[in-house]
């Protein structure tokens, strides 16, 4: 938990904000990792809030967040110069399955604010040879708040909006149907139901799929055992029953192999 100083806290419209923070640990963050942010010195809200890291640059870390409740409302009211308390980097982040980098195409699938971790990932793979693609789903055009940054770093992007106000009309899964090809690696982040649909599609096509999951979190460091996820895998050190196991989204994840997740109990 190192203090971070707000450099900028910019409204992007549609309740989205991009916050830049000066933070000594920024260089340590790997794509897909997250931080736990304490938005106030007050005891209400009590717990830290988890946010994926959107970008890092030297000792600057950027988070893309959507205002949905108490904590994010307070966060959006903070000003440059204010300090917040960051814990992290946390979680395991995206890992490119052994030997596949450069050989496989990365298909990133984002729903809503689930876009957040992909910018950092996109930057880290931008020199790969493959023709990577980001599929970005949002409710309306207004909600597609970070398209240009991806274009600027050369990530190809296709958009689906529920009302068709930008890109294809419909859900990301519609676009995916035609875009997901054998040999791709899929990285997905967004609402649970979307992830479930993406995972099923990937399984059908025999495509490797990694999903970044969300859970209510208290500690973020694997000790409260609050953020349990039912999985079908048998990683060591966990308790089993009926061949299932609980893993912790914060410390075992937040990124999981989609085949390990018990999608019926998500």
């Amino acid at each position, binding site marked *: *938990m190192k203090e971070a100083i707000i450099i900028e806290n910019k409204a992007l419209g549609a309740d989205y904000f991009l916050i830049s923070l000066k933070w000594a640990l920024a260089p340590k963050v790997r794509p897909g990792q997250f931080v736990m942010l*304490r938005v106030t010195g007050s*005891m*209400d*809200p*009590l*717990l*830290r809030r988890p946010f994926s890291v959107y970008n890092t640059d030297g000792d600057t870390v950027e988070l893309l967040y959507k205002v949905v409740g108490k904590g994010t409302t307070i966060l959006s009211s903070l000003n440059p110069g204010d300090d917040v*308390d960051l*814990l992290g980097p946390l979680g395991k982040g995206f890992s490119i399955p052994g030997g596949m980098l450069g050989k496989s195409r990365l298909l990133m699938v984002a729903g809503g604010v689930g876009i957040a971790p992909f910018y950092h990932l996109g930057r880290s793979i931008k020199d790969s040879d493959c023709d990577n693609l980001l599929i970005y789903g949002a409710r309306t055009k207004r909600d597609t708040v970070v398209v240009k940054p991806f274009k600027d770093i050369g990530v190809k992007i296709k958009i689906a909006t529920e009302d068709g106000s930008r890109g294809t009309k419909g859900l990301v899964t519609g676009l995916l149907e035609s875009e997901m090809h054998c040999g791709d690696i899929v990285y997905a982040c967004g609402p649970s139901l979307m992830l479930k649909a993406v995972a099923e599609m990937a399984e059908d096509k025999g495509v490797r799929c990694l999903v970044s999951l969300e*859970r*209510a*979190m*208290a*500690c*973020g*460091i*694997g*000790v*409260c*055992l*609050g*953020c*349990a*996820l*039912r999985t079908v895998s048998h990683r060591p*050190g966990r*308790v*089993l*029953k009926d061949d299932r*196991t*609980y893993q912790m989204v914060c410390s075992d994840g937040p990124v999981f192999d989609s085949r390990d997740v018990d999608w019926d*109990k998500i």
Partner: protein
Amino acid sequence: MKKTEKAKAIAKKPSTGIVLGKGSRALRLSSPVMTASGTFGYGLEFSPYMKLEKLGAICVKGLSLRPREGNPPPRTVETPCGMLNAIGLQNVGVDVFIDSKLPKLRKYKTKVIANIFGETASEYAELAKRLDDAKGVHALEINISCPNVKKGGMAFGTDPKEAARVVRAVRAVTGKHVMTKLSPNVTDIRVMARAVEDAGSDSISLINTLTGMAIDINKRRPVLTTKIGGLSGPAIKPVALRMVWEAAGVVKIPVVGIGGIVTAEDAIEFLLAGASAVQVGTANFLTPNASEKVADGIAAYMKKHNIGSVRKLVGALN
């Protein structure tokens, strides 16, 4: 600094050591600050964030005979100045703890307290037996107060006779310090405190969580799958403090105060109310080094108020 000055400074440094209990079962703590079971993992997880040696003791996550997988998620929900949890005592089981966690923990110069939980009095006894010759376990904390499991748990914690039965069963099989952790979900905490004292407990710790509930008004469902969970955090501090004060007033064995402690000021309130030591719980989630800060803060307060020994703070209400 000249030698004499240094000596003086050392002499002036307040003594934060405290001894809980007597004789061979005395638990000697270098600081009155411990961490509460279930909020500090097995201790090791916190070594990147703080000096574990600053702590008087670490209470590890509740241990059962067999590994337990815990409750289905969601397991936690935030409430005003608090949180509800229904972890359901997920843990690796006592054997894995002894074999794979304890050896690593032994390297740190702090006491280790094993928090134990059974579904019957004899399960508690069996746990105590297995831990009795575990090197590096300095005390057992009997958790008779967990609201998040169906069997045992709360029943032991709300009935003085049942509580005494568990304590006696454990007492009979261990030479280690036995601390009994009380549930706040009772009409009169003093009755419970006296019952476990009479049954041979070396100390008592309190409070465990208050039972509570939260409802998701959009899904129209309790947020927790278990419906009811345990409330912890600053919200419960006034209740915890009252109960510690009441319990300390009726027992002779030392009392360990728990409940909503975030700052050194909070901890000092508990000491003044009669607690000989404290445990920091939920605060570890807010700030991983919260317990270290509490320990440092108590020392600073003692220095400022010229209190030579932490013992002088215990129950020292005017």
